[in-house]
Protein backbone atom coordinates (compact mmCIF):
# COMPACT_ATOMS: atom_id res chain seq x y z
CA UNK A 1 0.00 0.00 0.00
CA UNK A 2 2.77 2.41 1.00
CA UNK A 3 4.75 1.63 -2.15
CA UNK A 4 1.73 2.37 -4.33
CA UNK A 5 1.16 5.65 -2.54
CA UNK A 6 4.76 6.85 -2.84
CA UNK A 7 4.90 5.65 -6.43
CA UNK A 8 1.93 7.68 -7.49
CA UNK A 9 2.95 10.68 -5.40
CA UNK A 10 3.27 13.26 -8.17
CA UNK A 11 -0.04 12.13 -9.58
CA UNK A 12 -1.59 12.25 -6.13
CA UNK A 13 -0.18 15.67 -5.59
CA UNK A 14 -1.56 16.99 -8.84
CA UNK A 15 -4.89 15.33 -8.19
CA UNK A 16 -5.03 16.86 -4.73
CA UNK A 17 -4.30 20.31 -6.14
CA UNK A 18 -6.80 19.88 -8.93
CA UNK A 19 -9.43 18.48 -6.58
CA UNK A 20 -9.06 21.12 -3.95
CA UNK A 21 -9.01 24.00 -6.36
CA UNK A 22 -11.83 22.68 -8.50
CA UNK A 23 -14.53 22.47 -5.93
CA UNK A 24 -15.72 24.78 -3.29
CA UNK A 25 -19.08 25.03 -1.66
CA UNK A 26 -19.72 27.53 1.04
CA UNK A 27 -22.84 28.70 2.76
CA UNK A 28 -22.82 31.54 5.22
CA UNK A 29 -25.39 33.47 7.20
CA UNK A 30 -24.49 36.96 8.31
CA UNK A 31 -26.07 40.17 9.51
CA UNK A 32 -26.01 43.18 7.23
CA UNK A 33 -26.52 46.42 9.16
CA UNK A 34 -28.47 49.30 7.67
CA UNK A 35 -26.78 51.52 5.09
CA UNK A 36 -24.06 48.99 4.56
CA UNK A 37 -22.69 46.81 1.87
CA UNK A 38 -20.89 43.51 2.17
CA UNK A 39 -18.88 41.91 -0.60
CA UNK A 40 -17.52 38.42 -1.00
CA UNK A 41 -14.88 37.47 -3.52
CA UNK A 42 -13.57 34.26 -4.95
CA UNK A 43 -10.95 33.44 -7.53
CA UNK A 44 -12.40 30.98 -10.03
CA UNK A 45 -10.94 29.32 -13.10
CA UNK A 46 -12.42 29.30 -16.56
CA UNK A 47 -15.26 26.99 -17.61
CA UNK A 48 -16.50 26.24 -14.15
CA UNK A 49 -20.19 26.06 -13.44
CA UNK A 50 -21.10 28.17 -10.42
CA UNK A 51 -24.32 28.65 -8.53
CA UNK A 52 -25.12 31.37 -6.08
CA UNK A 53 -28.38 31.53 -4.19
CA UNK A 54 -29.34 33.88 -1.43
CA UNK A 55 -32.28 34.53 0.85
CA UNK A 56 -33.13 37.25 3.30
CA UNK A 57 -34.13 35.71 6.62
CA UNK A 58 -35.10 38.59 8.87
CA UNK A 59 -35.39 42.34 8.68
CA UNK A 60 -37.81 44.94 7.39
CA UNK A 61 -39.37 44.03 4.06
CA UNK A 62 -37.08 41.02 3.65
CA UNK A 63 -35.32 42.52 0.65
CA UNK A 64 -31.74 43.21 -0.33
CA UNK A 65 -29.82 44.39 -3.41
CA UNK A 66 -27.43 41.95 -4.97
CA UNK A 67 -24.74 42.52 -7.57
CA UNK A 68 -22.49 39.94 -9.19
CA UNK A 69 -19.45 41.09 -11.16
CA UNK A 70 -16.85 39.15 -13.10
CA UNK A 71 -13.08 39.66 -13.32
CA UNK A 72 -12.97 42.53 -15.80
CA UNK A 73 -15.71 44.44 -14.02
CA UNK A 74 -18.31 42.84 -16.22
CA UNK A 75 -21.69 42.77 -14.59
CA UNK A 76 -23.25 39.31 -14.52
CA UNK A 77 -26.27 39.96 -12.36
CA UNK A 78 -27.73 43.02 -10.74
CA UNK A 79 -31.06 43.27 -9.04
CA UNK A 80 -32.62 45.36 -6.32
CA UNK A 81 -34.90 44.51 -3.43
CA UNK A 82 -34.99 40.77 -3.90
CA UNK A 83 -36.15 38.41 -1.20
CA UNK A 84 -34.74 35.26 -2.74
CA UNK A 85 -32.90 34.44 -5.91
CA UNK A 86 -30.60 31.91 -7.51
CA UNK A 87 -27.98 32.60 -10.19
CA UNK A 88 -26.21 29.91 -12.22
CA UNK A 89 -23.46 30.75 -14.66
CA UNK A 90 -20.43 29.20 -16.28
CA UNK A 91 -17.28 31.24 -15.94
CA UNK A 92 -15.67 32.22 -19.21
CA UNK A 93 -12.52 33.75 -17.77
CA UNK A 94 -10.11 33.25 -14.91
CA UNK A 95 -10.13 35.76 -12.17
CA UNK A 96 -11.78 37.25 -9.16
CA UNK A 97 -15.56 37.04 -9.09
CA UNK A 98 -17.33 39.26 -6.63
CA UNK A 99 -20.87 39.42 -5.29
CA UNK A 100 -22.10 42.21 -3.08
CA UNK A 101 -25.16 42.54 -0.88
CA UNK A 102 -26.36 46.05 -0.25
CA UNK A 103 -28.70 47.31 2.45
CA UNK A 104 -28.02 50.95 1.65
CA UNK A 105 -31.66 51.76 0.88
CA UNK A 106 -32.71 50.89 4.41
CA UNK A 107 -32.57 53.47 7.18
CA UNK A 108 -32.66 51.38 10.31
CA UNK A 109 -33.44 47.73 9.66
CA UNK A 110 -30.69 45.16 9.93
CA UNK A 111 -31.04 42.22 7.63
CA UNK A 112 -29.86 38.68 8.14
CA UNK A 113 -28.87 37.14 4.83
CA UNK A 114 -28.10 33.55 3.93
CA UNK A 115 -26.20 32.62 0.80
CA UNK A 116 -24.95 29.39 -0.69
CA UNK A 117 -22.11 29.58 -3.19
CA UNK A 118 -21.32 26.43 -5.14
CA UNK A 119 -18.26 26.28 -7.39
CA UNK A 120 -17.73 23.32 -9.67
CA UNK A 121 -18.98 19.79 -9.27
CA UNK A 122 -18.68 17.57 -6.29
CA UNK A 123 -15.26 15.88 -6.07
CA UNK A 124 -15.02 12.10 -6.35
CA UNK A 125 -15.35 10.58 -2.93
CA UNK A 126 -12.11 8.69 -2.91
CA UNK A 127 -9.58 10.98 -4.57
CA UNK A 128 -6.88 8.36 -4.47
CA UNK A 129 -8.21 5.92 -7.02
CA UNK A 130 -7.89 7.53 -10.38
CA UNK A 131 -8.65 4.34 -12.26
CA UNK A 132 -11.56 3.36 -10.03
CA UNK A 133 -14.06 3.98 -12.75
CA UNK A 134 -12.07 2.55 -15.61
CA UNK A 135 -14.33 -0.44 -15.03
CA UNK A 136 -18.05 0.12 -15.03
CA UNK A 137 -19.69 0.66 -11.67
CA UNK A 138 -21.63 -2.24 -10.24
CA UNK A 139 -25.32 -1.84 -9.66
CA UNK A 140 -24.63 -1.53 -5.97
CA UNK A 141 -22.26 1.35 -6.52
CA UNK A 142 -24.55 3.21 -8.89
CA UNK A 143 -27.48 2.74 -6.49
CA UNK A 144 -25.33 4.16 -3.73
CA UNK A 145 -24.53 7.18 -5.90
CA UNK A 146 -28.23 7.66 -6.66
CA UNK A 147 -29.05 7.55 -2.96
CA UNK A 148 -26.30 10.07 -2.30
CA UNK A 149 -27.70 12.47 -4.90
CA UNK A 150 -31.19 12.03 -3.47
CA UNK A 151 -30.00 12.75 0.05
CA UNK A 152 -28.22 15.87 -1.13
CA UNK A 153 -31.54 17.13 -2.50
CA UNK A 154 -33.23 16.28 0.81
CA UNK A 155 -30.62 18.26 2.72
CA UNK A 156 -31.08 21.17 0.33
CA UNK A 157 -34.87 21.16 0.84
CA UNK A 158 -34.34 20.92 4.57
CA UNK A 159 -32.13 24.00 4.50
CA UNK A 160 -34.75 25.99 2.65
CA UNK A 161 -37.46 24.78 4.98
CA UNK A 162 -35.34 25.79 7.95
CA UNK A 163 -34.83 29.27 6.50
CA UNK A 164 -38.54 29.80 5.89
CA UNK A 165 -39.35 28.53 9.36
CA UNK A 166 -36.75 30.87 10.89
CA UNK A 167 -38.30 33.74 8.98
CA UNK A 168 -41.79 32.95 10.28
CA UNK A 169 -40.63 32.34 13.81
CA UNK A 170 -38.58 35.55 13.99
CA UNK A 171 -41.62 37.50 12.82
CA UNK A 172 -43.90 35.77 15.35
CA UNK A 173 -41.52 36.51 18.21
CA UNK A 174 -41.26 40.12 17.10
CA UNK A 175 -45.06 40.33 16.93
CA UNK A 176 -45.35 38.92 20.43
CA UNK A 177 -43.04 41.60 21.80
CA UNK A 178 -44.81 44.38 19.92
CA UNK A 179 -48.26 43.30 21.17
CA UNK A 180 -47.00 43.50 24.74
CA UNK A 181 -45.31 46.86 24.34
CA UNK A 182 -48.15 48.50 22.47
CA UNK A 183 -50.77 47.18 24.91
CA UNK A 184 -48.87 48.59 27.87
CA UNK A 185 -48.44 51.86 25.96
CA UNK A 186 -52.13 52.06 25.11
CA UNK A 187 -53.21 51.43 28.70
CA UNK A 188 -50.91 54.19 29.90
CA UNK A 189 -52.33 56.55 27.25
CA UNK A 190 -55.92 55.74 28.31
CA UNK A 191 -55.13 56.53 31.93
CA UNK A 192 -53.23 59.70 31.09
CA UNK A 193 -55.99 60.98 28.80
CA UNK A 194 -58.67 60.17 31.40
CA UNK A 195 -56.85 61.97 34.17
CA UNK A 196 -55.84 64.80 31.85
CA UNK A 197 -59.43 65.42 30.79
CA UNK A 198 -60.54 65.79 34.41
CA UNK A 199 -57.70 68.14 35.25
CA UNK A 200 -58.39 70.37 32.22
CA UNK A 201 -62.10 70.38 32.93
CA UNK A 202 -61.47 71.37 36.51
CA UNK A 203 -59.26 74.21 35.35
CA UNK A 204 -62.19 75.60 33.32
CA UNK A 205 -64.19 75.97 36.50
CA UNK A 206 -61.54 77.38 38.81
CA UNK A 207 -60.85 80.94 37.63
CA UNK A 208 -58.83 83.45 39.56
CA UNK A 209 -61.69 85.92 39.42
CA UNK A 210 -64.63 84.97 41.54
CA UNK A 211 -67.29 83.87 39.18
CA UNK A 212 -70.52 82.37 39.95
CA UNK A 213 -73.13 81.34 37.53
CA UNK A 214 -75.62 79.88 39.89
CA UNK A 215 -78.98 79.81 38.40
CA UNK A 216 -81.81 79.79 40.83
Amino acid sequence: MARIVTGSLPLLGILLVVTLTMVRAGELTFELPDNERMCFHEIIEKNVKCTLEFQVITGGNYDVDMELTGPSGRNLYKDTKKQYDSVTWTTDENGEYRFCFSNEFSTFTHKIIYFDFQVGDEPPLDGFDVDAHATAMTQMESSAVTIHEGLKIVIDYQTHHRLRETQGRAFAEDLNERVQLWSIGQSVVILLVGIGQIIILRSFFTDKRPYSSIKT
Partner: protein
Amino acid sequence: MFNKSVLGFLLTVCITYTSALYFHIGETERKCFIEEIPDETMVVGKYKVELFDRQQNMYVPTRGGLGMHVEIRDPDDSMIISRVQVFDMNIGDFVHTAPGPLGMHVQIRDPKGSTIMSRTYAAEGRFTFTSHSAGEHVICLHSNSSAWFGGGQLRVHLDIQVGEHANDYQQIAAKDKLTELQLRVRQLLDQVEQITKEQNYQRYREERFRQTSESTNQRVLWWSIGQTVILLLTGFWQMKHLKSFFEAKKLV
Protein backbone atom coordinates in the same frame (compact mmCIF):
# COMPACT_ATOMS: atom_id res chain seq x y z
CA MET B 1 12.42 11.45 2.89
CA PHE B 2 12.49 13.17 -0.50
CA ASN B 3 8.97 11.94 -1.22
CA LYS B 4 7.78 13.29 2.11
CA SER B 5 9.13 16.74 1.35
CA VAL B 6 7.58 16.64 -2.11
CA LEU B 7 4.27 15.77 -0.52
CA GLY B 8 4.79 18.53 1.98
CA PHE B 9 5.52 21.01 -0.77
CA LEU B 10 2.47 19.94 -2.74
CA LEU B 11 0.31 20.16 0.35
CA THR B 12 1.68 23.64 0.92
CA VAL B 13 0.78 24.57 -2.64
CA CYS B 14 -2.65 23.05 -2.15
CA ILE B 15 -3.38 24.79 1.11
CA THR B 16 -2.16 28.16 -0.06
CA TYR B 17 -3.83 27.70 -3.43
CA THR B 18 -7.20 26.87 -1.95
CA SER B 19 -8.26 30.43 -1.46
CA ALA B 20 -11.82 29.93 -0.40
CA LEU B 21 -14.38 32.68 -0.28
CA TYR B 22 -12.82 35.87 1.05
CA PHE B 23 -13.96 39.28 2.20
CA HIS B 24 -12.42 42.46 3.52
CA ILE B 25 -12.71 43.97 6.95
CA GLY B 26 -10.94 46.80 8.69
CA GLU B 27 -8.38 46.01 11.34
CA THR B 28 -10.68 47.09 14.13
CA GLU B 29 -13.89 45.83 12.58
CA ARG B 30 -15.86 42.81 13.68
CA LYS B 31 -17.72 40.38 11.46
CA CYS B 32 -20.16 37.74 12.64
CA PHE B 33 -21.61 34.66 11.01
CA ILE B 34 -24.58 32.69 12.24
CA GLU B 35 -24.85 28.92 12.15
CA GLU B 36 -28.18 27.45 13.14
CA ILE B 37 -27.34 23.83 13.88
CA PRO B 38 -28.76 20.89 15.82
CA ASP B 39 -26.82 19.51 18.77
CA GLU B 40 -23.85 17.15 18.51
CA THR B 41 -22.91 18.61 15.15
CA MET B 42 -19.30 19.18 14.27
CA VAL B 43 -18.31 22.47 12.68
CA VAL B 44 -14.93 22.99 11.03
CA GLY B 45 -13.81 26.46 10.03
CA LYS B 46 -10.72 27.19 7.92
CA TYR B 47 -9.42 30.73 7.78
CA LYS B 48 -6.51 32.75 6.47
CA VAL B 49 -5.78 36.40 7.11
CA GLU B 50 -3.83 38.70 4.82
CA LEU B 51 -2.87 42.29 5.38
CA PHE B 52 -2.97 45.00 2.72
CA ASP B 53 0.53 46.22 2.03
CA ARG B 54 0.45 49.80 0.81
CA GLN B 55 3.93 49.69 -0.74
CA GLN B 56 3.29 46.61 -2.80
CA ASN B 57 -0.36 47.58 -3.28
CA MET B 58 -1.54 44.04 -2.72
CA TYR B 59 -2.50 41.67 0.02
CA VAL B 60 0.35 39.78 1.63
CA PRO B 61 0.32 37.03 4.26
CA THR B 62 0.88 38.46 7.70
CA ARG B 63 4.23 37.68 9.27
CA GLY B 64 3.66 36.87 12.93
CA GLY B 65 1.66 40.06 13.19
CA LEU B 66 -2.03 39.37 13.02
CA GLY B 67 -3.78 36.16 13.90
CA MET B 68 -7.13 34.83 15.03
CA HIS B 69 -8.85 34.56 18.36
CA VAL B 70 -11.51 31.91 18.64
CA GLU B 71 -14.23 32.09 21.21
CA ILE B 72 -17.19 29.75 21.45
CA ARG B 73 -19.98 30.00 23.97
CA ASP B 74 -22.26 27.36 25.40
CA PRO B 75 -25.63 27.79 27.18
CA ASP B 76 -24.62 25.85 30.27
CA ASP B 77 -21.34 27.76 30.52
CA SER B 78 -19.31 24.59 30.13
CA MET B 79 -16.15 24.51 28.06
CA ILE B 80 -16.41 22.83 24.72
CA ILE B 81 -13.24 20.96 23.86
CA SER B 82 -12.22 22.48 20.60
CA ARG B 83 -9.12 22.24 18.52
CA VAL B 84 -7.56 25.05 16.59
CA GLN B 85 -4.76 24.08 14.32
CA VAL B 86 -2.32 26.18 12.42
CA PHE B 87 -0.61 25.19 9.23
CA ASP B 88 3.09 24.61 9.89
CA MET B 89 5.20 25.06 6.75
CA ASN B 90 8.09 22.96 8.04
CA ILE B 91 6.06 19.92 8.90
CA GLY B 92 3.63 20.46 6.08
CA ASP B 93 0.53 19.80 8.11
CA PHE B 94 -1.81 21.41 10.59
CA VAL B 95 -0.51 21.42 14.18
CA HIS B 96 -1.84 22.55 17.51
CA THR B 97 -0.41 25.86 18.44
CA ALA B 98 0.01 27.99 21.49
CA PRO B 99 -1.64 31.41 21.43
CA GLY B 100 0.43 33.92 19.51
CA PRO B 101 1.17 37.54 20.34
CA LEU B 102 -1.41 39.06 18.00
CA GLY B 103 -4.33 37.33 16.49
CA MET B 104 -7.59 37.29 14.68
CA HIS B 105 -10.28 37.11 17.29
CA VAL B 106 -12.92 34.56 16.35
CA GLN B 107 -15.71 34.41 18.84
CA ILE B 108 -18.29 31.63 18.72
CA ARG B 109 -21.41 32.05 20.79
CA ASP B 110 -24.07 29.41 21.24
CA PRO B 111 -27.86 29.93 21.20
CA LYS B 112 -28.15 31.27 24.75
CA GLY B 113 -25.30 33.67 24.15
CA SER B 114 -22.72 32.22 26.53
CA THR B 115 -19.12 31.74 25.49
CA ILE B 116 -17.79 28.25 24.87
CA MET B 117 -14.30 28.92 23.71
CA SER B 118 -12.00 31.90 23.58
CA ARG B 119 -8.45 31.77 22.30
CA THR B 120 -6.02 33.62 20.09
CA TYR B 121 -4.31 32.04 17.16
CA ALA B 122 -2.05 32.87 14.27
CA ALA B 123 -2.89 34.15 10.83
CA GLU B 124 -3.87 30.87 9.24
CA GLY B 125 -5.43 27.76 10.59
CA ARG B 126 -8.61 25.97 11.37
CA PHE B 127 -10.90 25.62 14.31
CA THR B 128 -13.29 22.82 15.21
CA PHE B 129 -16.11 22.64 17.67
CA THR B 130 -19.06 20.39 18.35
CA SER B 131 -22.33 21.95 19.40
CA HIS B 132 -23.81 20.67 22.64
CA SER B 133 -27.12 22.41 22.27
CA ALA B 134 -29.27 23.05 19.28
CA GLY B 135 -29.73 26.59 18.10
CA GLU B 136 -28.04 29.62 16.64
CA HIS B 137 -24.32 29.65 17.16
CA VAL B 138 -22.61 32.90 16.32
CA ILE B 139 -19.04 32.94 15.03
CA CYS B 140 -17.48 36.39 15.26
CA LEU B 141 -14.11 37.51 13.93
CA HIS B 142 -11.99 40.50 14.53
CA SER B 143 -8.28 41.01 14.64
CA ASN B 144 -6.84 41.89 18.01
CA SER B 145 -4.53 44.52 16.64
CA SER B 146 -3.70 47.30 19.05
CA ALA B 147 -5.01 50.08 16.80
CA TRP B 148 -7.94 51.92 18.33
CA PHE B 149 -9.63 52.87 15.09
CA GLY B 150 -9.03 52.83 11.37
CA GLY B 151 -6.00 50.77 10.60
CA GLY B 152 -5.37 48.73 7.50
CA GLN B 153 -7.62 46.50 5.51
CA LEU B 154 -7.57 42.78 6.14
CA ARG B 155 -8.47 40.08 3.69
CA VAL B 156 -10.00 37.11 5.46
CA HIS B 157 -10.44 33.80 3.67
CA LEU B 158 -13.11 31.80 5.43
CA ASP B 159 -14.61 28.39 4.87
CA ILE B 160 -17.04 26.94 7.37
CA GLN B 161 -18.26 23.38 6.92
CA VAL B 162 -20.99 21.90 9.04
CA GLY B 163 -21.89 18.31 9.91
CA GLU B 164 -21.37 15.79 7.19
CA HIS B 165 -19.49 18.27 4.95
CA ALA B 166 -16.85 18.63 7.66
CA ASN B 167 -15.77 15.01 7.36
CA ASP B 168 -12.63 14.29 5.42
CA TYR B 169 -13.50 11.08 3.63
CA GLN B 170 -10.05 10.46 2.23
CA GLN B 171 -8.66 10.48 5.73
CA ILE B 172 -11.41 8.16 6.99
CA ALA B 173 -10.82 5.75 4.11
CA ALA B 174 -7.09 5.67 4.83
CA LYS B 175 -7.58 5.23 8.57
CA ASP B 176 -10.20 2.48 8.48
CA LYS B 177 -8.99 0.99 5.19
CA LEU B 178 -12.37 1.07 3.51
CA THR B 179 -13.15 0.15 -0.04
CA GLU B 180 -14.91 2.72 -2.17
CA LEU B 181 -18.32 1.17 -1.65
CA GLN B 182 -17.81 1.02 2.09
CA LEU B 183 -16.72 4.65 2.06
CA ARG B 184 -19.78 5.59 0.07
CA VAL B 185 -22.02 3.78 2.55
CA ARG B 186 -20.24 5.57 5.40
CA GLN B 187 -20.96 8.87 3.68
CA LEU B 188 -24.62 7.92 3.25
CA LEU B 189 -24.85 7.01 6.94
CA ASP B 190 -23.40 10.40 7.89
CA GLN B 191 -25.83 12.20 5.61
CA VAL B 192 -28.81 10.31 7.00
CA GLU B 193 -27.67 11.08 10.54
CA GLN B 194 -27.45 14.76 9.69
CA ILE B 195 -30.94 14.70 8.17
CA THR B 196 -32.34 12.97 11.25
CA LYS B 197 -30.78 15.49 13.62
CA GLU B 198 -32.05 18.39 11.55
CA GLN B 199 -35.60 16.93 11.53
CA ASN B 200 -35.51 16.50 15.26
CA TYR B 201 -34.31 20.05 15.70
CA GLN B 202 -37.09 21.16 13.36
CA ARG B 203 -39.66 19.57 15.66
CA TYR B 204 -38.27 21.51 18.63
CA ARG B 205 -38.26 24.76 16.65
CA GLU B 206 -41.81 24.25 15.49
CA GLU B 207 -42.87 23.74 19.10
CA ARG B 208 -41.23 27.03 20.04
CA PHE B 209 -43.02 28.75 17.17
CA ARG B 210 -46.33 27.33 18.35
CA GLN B 211 -45.66 28.48 21.91
CA THR B 212 -44.87 31.98 20.70
CA SER B 213 -48.10 32.10 18.68
CA GLU B 214 -50.15 30.86 21.60
CA SER B 215 -48.49 33.41 23.86
CA THR B 216 -49.38 36.18 21.40
CA ASN B 217 -52.95 34.90 21.33
CA GLN B 218 -53.15 34.95 25.12
CA ARG B 219 -51.64 38.40 25.32
CA VAL B 220 -54.03 39.85 22.77
CA LEU B 221 -56.98 38.33 24.62
CA TRP B 222 -56.00 39.46 28.11
CA TRP B 223 -54.84 42.90 27.11
CA SER B 224 -58.09 43.54 25.19
CA ILE B 225 -60.14 42.60 28.22
CA GLY B 226 -57.80 44.55 30.45
CA GLN B 227 -57.91 47.68 28.35
CA THR B 228 -61.71 47.56 28.14
CA VAL B 229 -61.86 47.29 31.94
CA ILE B 230 -59.41 50.18 32.34
CA LEU B 231 -61.47 52.28 29.94
CA LEU B 232 -64.72 51.58 31.80
CA LEU B 233 -63.16 52.20 35.20
CA THR B 234 -61.64 55.47 33.98
CA GLY B 235 -65.04 56.51 32.64
CA PHE B 236 -66.81 55.77 35.91
CA TRP B 237 -64.10 57.50 37.92
CA GLN B 238 -64.34 60.56 35.68
CA MET B 239 -68.12 60.84 36.10
CA LYS B 240 -67.95 60.27 39.85
CA HIS B 241 -65.18 62.82 40.27
CA LEU B 242 -66.96 65.41 38.14
CA LYS B 243 -70.23 64.91 40.01
CA SER B 244 -68.56 65.42 43.38
CA PHE B 245 -66.59 68.38 41.95
CA PHE B 246 -69.68 70.13 40.65
CA GLU B 247 -71.57 69.42 43.88
CA ALA B 248 -68.68 71.02 45.79
CA LYS B 249 -68.81 74.00 43.44
CA LYS B 250 -72.55 74.23 43.94
CA LEU B 251 -73.16 74.16 40.20
CA VAL B 252 -75.33 71.11 40.24
